[in-house]
């Protein structure tokens, strides 16, 4: 049985450097230049395996953390520019040390736990929040032959793992013993579960075209970027994932003007920092998934593959920042209506059209792919135009008869 790490260049390098390679022709082919007995004696391959795996995991997680901190800076700078101001530019050259300054500040802050809080759950919630974001990295191919694991159910794994963050938000909101946090938690559950569905369905079109759940295979299957073939799927995925990440215009979960800070109102110090890290990290991982699914992942001319991947990730991240800088927030019922009445039908249409096209057209021919792109583009425009009617205007207040005494007297 092949290891899920097979095909990972970095892993193979470390492994072959360490292990005795006589019995491992599969992973260290004898004809390659790497064929040389490693440092460990025969029978200790498991140690080489473990060390290599730990090394690559450490590398990926740390690189991700550094990128996420850099991203907090990038987001604040770009938001500033969108608002015709400068953004943080005081700490270090161009303010580049701002994330470090923030981290030091957060670490130096008092770590408060409210008196009415459920201590255990309260402390656990940030961890549960940050874990799924990091877990996603396990299957994300960030360069040619560069990934932690190429799992045959990759994209499903991503969807499954990201659904855990709902739980974290709810834990945080419920355990804080704060009513704003409670509102945030309730909103998180309602919103995130609803948007899970269109997001998953929007991926299906890509899967139909690629014929695989593995993210590596999806990248390799893209002859032209799927953003052209799946404009509707991309739109739904982008909208849905910004809702899953609580980003504008769906940032109800932490709507500052309404419920102060939502589920992490009561958090302070580094716990708050962990929440922020998870949120900013989620933008990066989501952008990475979008780059993988819709923009040919790491592939690109001239530049090294890792750089291409990074460029695409920051391109999508820029898109998210732009949206955040521009749009106001929707109301809860409108957000739900948007998911169920707008995104869900659109994603179903997308699946339907794509399935028909995959059946009817020979997808191995490039001309057919361009034809599909044309059809899908038209369908996307028509679909969005047709279903945008369902986004309601205004809405009605609930009919409530006002009793004469005010709340304080009726107590």
């Amino acid at each position: 049985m092949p290891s899920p790490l097979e095909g990972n260049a970095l892993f193979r390098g470390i492994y072959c450097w360490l292990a005795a390679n006589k019995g491992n022709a599969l992973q260290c082919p004898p004809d390659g230049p790497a064929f040389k007995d490693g440092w460990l004696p025969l029978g200790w391959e498991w140690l080489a395996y473990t060390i290599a795996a730990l090394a690559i995991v450490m590398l990926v997680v740390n690189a991700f953390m550094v990128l996420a901190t850099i991203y907090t800076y990038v987001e604040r700078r770009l938001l500033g520019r969108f608002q015709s101001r400068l953004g943080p530019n005081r700490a270090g050259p161009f303010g580049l040390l701002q994330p470090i300054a923030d981290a030091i500040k957060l670490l130096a802050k008092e770590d408060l736990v409210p008196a009415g809080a459920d201590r255990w759950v309260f402390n656990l919630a940030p961890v549960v929040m940050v874990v799924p974001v990091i877990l996603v990295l396990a299957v994300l191919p960030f360069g040619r032959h560069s990934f932690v694991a190429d799992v045959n159910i990759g994209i499903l794994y991503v969807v499954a793992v990201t659904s855990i963050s709902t739980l974290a938000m709810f834990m945080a909101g419920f355990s804080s013993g704060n009513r704003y946090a409670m509102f945030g938690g309730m909103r998180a559950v309602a919103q995130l579960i609803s948007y899970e569905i269109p997001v998953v369905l929007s991926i299906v079109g890509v899967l139909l075209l690629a014929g695989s759940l593995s993210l590596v295979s999806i990248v390799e299957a893209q002859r032209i970027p799927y953003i052209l073939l799946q404009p509707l799927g991309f739109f739904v995925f982008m909208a849905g994932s910004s809702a899953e990440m609580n980003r504008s215009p769906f940032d109800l979960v932490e709507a500052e003007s309404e419920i102060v800070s939502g589920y992490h109102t009561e958090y302070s110090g580094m716990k708050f920092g962990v929440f922020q890290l998870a949120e900013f990290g989620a933008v990066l991982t989501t952008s990475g998934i979008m780059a993988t699914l819709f923009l040919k992942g790491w592939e690109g001319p001239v530049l090294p593959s890792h750089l291409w991947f990074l460029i695409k990730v920051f391109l999508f991240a820029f898109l998210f920042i732009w949206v955040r800088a521009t749009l106001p927030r929707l109301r809860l019922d409108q957000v739900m209506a948007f998911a169920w009445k707008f995104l869900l039908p659109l994603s179903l249409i997308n699946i339907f059209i794509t399935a028909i096209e995959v059946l009817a057209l020979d997808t191995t021919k490039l001309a057919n792919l361009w034809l599909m792109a044309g059809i899908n583009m038209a369908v996307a425009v028509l679909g969005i135009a047709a279903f945008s009617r369902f986004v309601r205007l205004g809405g009605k207040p609930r009919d409530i008869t006002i009793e004469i005494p005010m709340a304080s007297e009726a107590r």
Partner: protein
Amino acid sequence: MVQEMFFWLLAAVSVASALAVIRLHDLFRAALMLVVTFFTVAGLLILLNAEFLAVVQVLIYAGAISVLIIFAVLLTRDVEKGNRPNRLRVPALLASGLIGVFLVFVALQKEWPLLEDVLSKDSLARAEEVFTTTPQWLAGLLLREWVLPFEVASVLLLAAILGAIVLVRERHP
């Protein structure tokens, strides 16, 4: 050896958290322990090379069902105190014990043909194919061989969804 170590670890945690689910008074924490159980079960499934099932376990149970349970917990009063034991204690113990014994009995008695079937046919290579392309295999089974039960199940779920909507829909006078 490593696999066995992980198996025992996961099994122990899963049993412990399952016990915690029924022993904890705080319903919210009990629900969270249930999530832990779901995760450990997913881990066990991964050890069995059933990644697809594991992921679906996480997606459906840990991601969705548990949140629904927690939602339901929120609607109950006195979350911290939990359920008080009542007169149905003994019958409930009996019933659950019986069901447990029955399940264990069936699991032990029944011959599980699926894996053997595959193994006997084309030996190891074929088994490997099943494991590496689980989604395709499952898709084939669900949508070709057992398409009728699959559809029946979906119709049932649809009916359940519609029923739920009808039940909780706000009535505008």
